[in-house]
């Protein structure tokens, strides 16, 4: 069990040791750096319309030295929109992932450890939440509560904790009868201490799998909601770029407008997926051979 | 000569290797022996000595990283090592069938046991499904299972019942050879005895030959005519079962005999051979048994022993000519304690 603890201390090592995890980490880091320095990198205000010397809107201009990824129908700079969009993706991804897994892990720990009625009630709740169509629900929630990044994160968190809690619970079920837990109980450790000092460190690798996966799914959900027109109206997220592109009817003509957001979302979601695979091998050593 | 006419299986200088990430494991090295019609051949050795690899090689059932590196396997006058997949397929089960080591997982969990026996029959015989099914009933009767159980799924069977079902399946096509790979290891002791009993009675009514793989020398004594003693992927001794057990010529055979209760019923202490089998990725120089052999000489660490003829077979030992003296020594526990001391010193 010390082993699990040690490998957690070397989170970085886990990711670099594994080829998939390493690629994921690199993609993620690149996007993170872009997001942090976004306001320095972006040459234009992403929401500002750009005009040429004659005062006409620079509509749908293909990539050039002044507009690296061209302009939109409204003459906005796609490159700047992309750069600023990485910030939103990162904020939504990281914040939701942390909330989702924090809630999911704790609920899983409690359900698995206490068992009986508590477990039963929680697991039925999880079953029901599994029955809720995620995207339609998020859509209605955001529409009712008002568009905004906070409500988007809320919708994501309300639903997706189900995934991690179910898996963590079954892990706890196998852990709680192990001898080292028995030993802790015999020395008179409190439930709280057993749960968070002894069991939690052992489910952490599994939680990390879900951190990476939840990040990916949160980014995808934000993009989807924005694409459907329910994004934060004040921000230019990747999903929203695609929304404007689709609804302007110009998507067939302006590849520079349509391709970059899709590629960026795919890469960032992929990075989460690849990192989750690396964590999964730590959480489940049986997979390592494959 | 008569000797060649009834030769059913003949293995000559067989090498089998596995390719793994750390290199090539020579799991079976320079193995030769033969099986005659109607004979039961025992294949003994500790786990990991290459027994299972050897028998998998006979039917070319090696995993994808395993291959026959050298040598020939003849089934009657046909060379198995040169057969293509289709020729092999026709021989499998029809002429050589097997009772696998772990009956627990040997049956496909999603099909009824009866259907799996029927599948074996229909693969090789042009009979109707009904005929195949009635043959399956007959076989179940033979191994002492109710024929209604043919409709059960494997998970509804106990370990012993599964093993019986596999025995029934192995007999289904009346093959010339049945290979039983440690048929009792996965079972508990009481059931083990039952299954062995069952195999013995079946053998009485079965005119084919059998290869019995085991690490239990007492099983050999009960059932086998001939014996192959393997160690570290090589044959240490091959010969008439009774003779080898009575008067082993190889120190390893002597050690094995010590490790099991006497077959003649005489009372004595069981002595195990200290140490562990060699790493086949880097096999020791000279005789493979040298590190654990109480009689090893300087020569045994440098030179691989040649095969030397014995009464009904051969042995691979440099000190074969002193076998009689060694046998006397090997009966004493101190002899084997010496190796333990030697190992500590090294």
């Amino acid at each position, binding site marked *: 069990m010390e082993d699990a603890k040690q490998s957690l201390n070397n989170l970085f090592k886990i990711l670099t040791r594994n080829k998939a995890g390493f690629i994921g980490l690199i993609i993620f880091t690149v996007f993170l750096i872009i997001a942090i320095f976004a306001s320095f990198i972006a040459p234009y205000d992403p929401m500002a319309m750009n005009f040429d010397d004659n005062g006409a809107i620079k509509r749908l201009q293909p990539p050039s030295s002044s507009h690296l990824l061209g302009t939109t129908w409204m003459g906005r700079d796609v490159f700047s929109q992309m750069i600023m969009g990485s910030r939103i993706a990162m904020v939504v991804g990281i914040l939701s992932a942390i909330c989702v897994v924090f809630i999911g892990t704790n609920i899983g720990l409690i359900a698995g450890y206490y068992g009986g009625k508590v477990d039963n009630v929680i697991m039925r709740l999880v079953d029901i939440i599994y029955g809720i169509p995620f995207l339609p629900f998020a859509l209605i929630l955001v529409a009712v509560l008002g568009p905004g990044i906070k409500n988007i994160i809320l919708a994501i968190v309300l639903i997706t904790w189900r995934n991690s809690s179910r898996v963590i619970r079954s892990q706890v079920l196998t852990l709680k009868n192990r001898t080292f837990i028995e030993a802790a109980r015999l020395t008179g450790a409190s439930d709280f201490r057993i749960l968070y000092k002894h069991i939690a460190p052992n489910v952490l690798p599994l939680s990390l799998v879900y951190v990476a996966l939840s990040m990916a799914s949160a980014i995808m959900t934000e993009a989807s909601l924005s694409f*459907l027109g329910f994004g934060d109206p004040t921000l230019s997220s990747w999903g929203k770029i695609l929304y404007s592109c689709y609804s302007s009817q110009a998507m067939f003509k302006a590849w520079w407008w349509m391709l970059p957001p899709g590629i960026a979302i795919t890469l960032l979601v992929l990075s989460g997926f690849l990192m989750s695979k690396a964590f999964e091998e730590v959480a489940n050593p049986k997979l390592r051979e494959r | 000569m008569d000797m060649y006419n009834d030769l059913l299986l003949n293995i000559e200088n067989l090498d089998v290797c596995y390719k793994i990430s750390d290199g090539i494991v020579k799991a079976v090295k320079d193995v030769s022996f033969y099986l005659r019609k109607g004979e039961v051949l025992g294949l003994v050795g500790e786990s990991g000595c290459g027994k299972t690899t050897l028998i998998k090689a006979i039917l070319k059932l090696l995993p994808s990283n395993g291959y026959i590196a050298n040598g020939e396997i003849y089934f009657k006058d046909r060379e198995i090592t040169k057969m293509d997949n289709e020729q092999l397929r026709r021989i499998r089960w029809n002429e050589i069938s097997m009772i696998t080591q772990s009956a627990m997982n040997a049956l496909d969990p999603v099909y009824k046991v009866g259907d799996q026996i029927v599948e074996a029959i229909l693969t090789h015989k042009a009979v109707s499904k009904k005929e195949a099914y009635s043959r399956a009933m007959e076989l179940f009767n033979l191994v002492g299972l109710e024929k209604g159980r043919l409709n059960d799924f494997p998970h509804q069977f106990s370990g012993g019942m599964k093993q019986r079902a596999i025995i029934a399946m192995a007999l289904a096509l009346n093959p010339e050879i049945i290979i039983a790979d440690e048929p009792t290891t996965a079972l508990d002791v009481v059931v083990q005895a039952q299954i062995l009993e069952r195999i013995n009675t079946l053998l009485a009514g079965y005119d084919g030959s059998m290869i019995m793989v085991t690490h239990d020398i007492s099983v050999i004594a009960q059932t086998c005519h001939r014996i192959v003693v393997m160690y570290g992927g090589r044959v240490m001794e091959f010969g008439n079962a009774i003779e080898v057990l009575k008067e082993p010529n190889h120190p390893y055979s002597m050690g094995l005999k010590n490790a099991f209760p006497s077959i003649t019923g005489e009372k004595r202490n069981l002595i195990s051979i200290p140490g562990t089998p060699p790493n086949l990725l880097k096999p020791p120089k000279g005789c493979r048994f040298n590190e654990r052999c109480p009689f090893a000489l300087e020569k045994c660490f440098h030179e691989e022993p040649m095969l030397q003829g014995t009464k009904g077979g051969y042995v691979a030992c440099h000190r074969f000519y002193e076998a009689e003296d060694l046998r006397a020594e090997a009966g004493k526990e101190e002899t084997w304690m010496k190796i333990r001391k030697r190992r500590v010193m090294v």
Partner: protein
Amino acid sequence: MRSMKYILKRILQMILTLFILVTILFFLFRVVPGDPVSMYIDSGLDKESQELLLKQYGLDKPLLEQYIIYIKSMLRGDFGNSFQYGKPAITVIGERFWNTLVLMITSLAISLCIGVFGGALLAWKRGTKIDTVGTILVLAVRCAPVFWTGMLFLSIFAFKLKLLPLGGMNTPGTNFVSLYDKFFSADFLKHLILPALTASLYSAATPLLVMRSSMLEVVKEDFIELVRAKGVKEKKILYKHAMRNALLPVITVFAVQAGFAIGGSVLIETVFRWPGMGREIVLAVSARDYPLAQTAFFLIGTMTALFNLIADVLYAYLDPRVVIN
């Protein structure tokens, strides 16, 4: 008979889930800040009609009573009137329901085939170029936003190559005598290809990856070796034994995937302007037509539950080890 009992039990469970779904929906719309009445009654109506509707829906009553009225009217199939269409919401959605169902069944069936056979192929060709390239491709499809893939397909196959229509479900102006006519006309099938392809590629990715690793596990099993020892032909070993066993975990993830796909129909239907429930829910929410949105949500939930039920029953049928009781 035991299996009948099992199915009955699952149906009861499904009804319970739907009931709770409806309850969540009810409170969601009432607990929210702002005037809940405006969410139910078209503010464009005159005062008198508003009052009348207020009474009719019992919106002047306490919350608990409202809830009972709400459930009762739902049981009668009364989901309220759509503001936009001026018709009962259920009538509007009823038609959309079939359009979504046809698209979903088609794409889920295709995705199951792609997942099972594609995964088996990659596992069989393990370590070769086919495996490497295939896995990367599947990962890319799995991680790309499905609406973006749809946009790409539209640009390539509809706009550039002009092979397929740009969206919708049939060419405007065509009329069909019957449902059969509608769903089996060449025109409809042409419109179906791109959305079904996009949805099925997306839904196939996860089952495919599961099938691949499940196959790699199964071929190592002892029973596969025994079947080979029996002299069964390699092709038959692959189909009848290896794939059949590897299929089991695929069914489990496929159930989850189906739920996901049905939720994702909001994206596919929006991109391809497919007149189904998913697109309707987006339009309804945008137009603040809440009775319509609620109805669509309820039916999408029902469809999800139905697919889950089918997957469970299928699993129990495919795996004899599942004890049904």
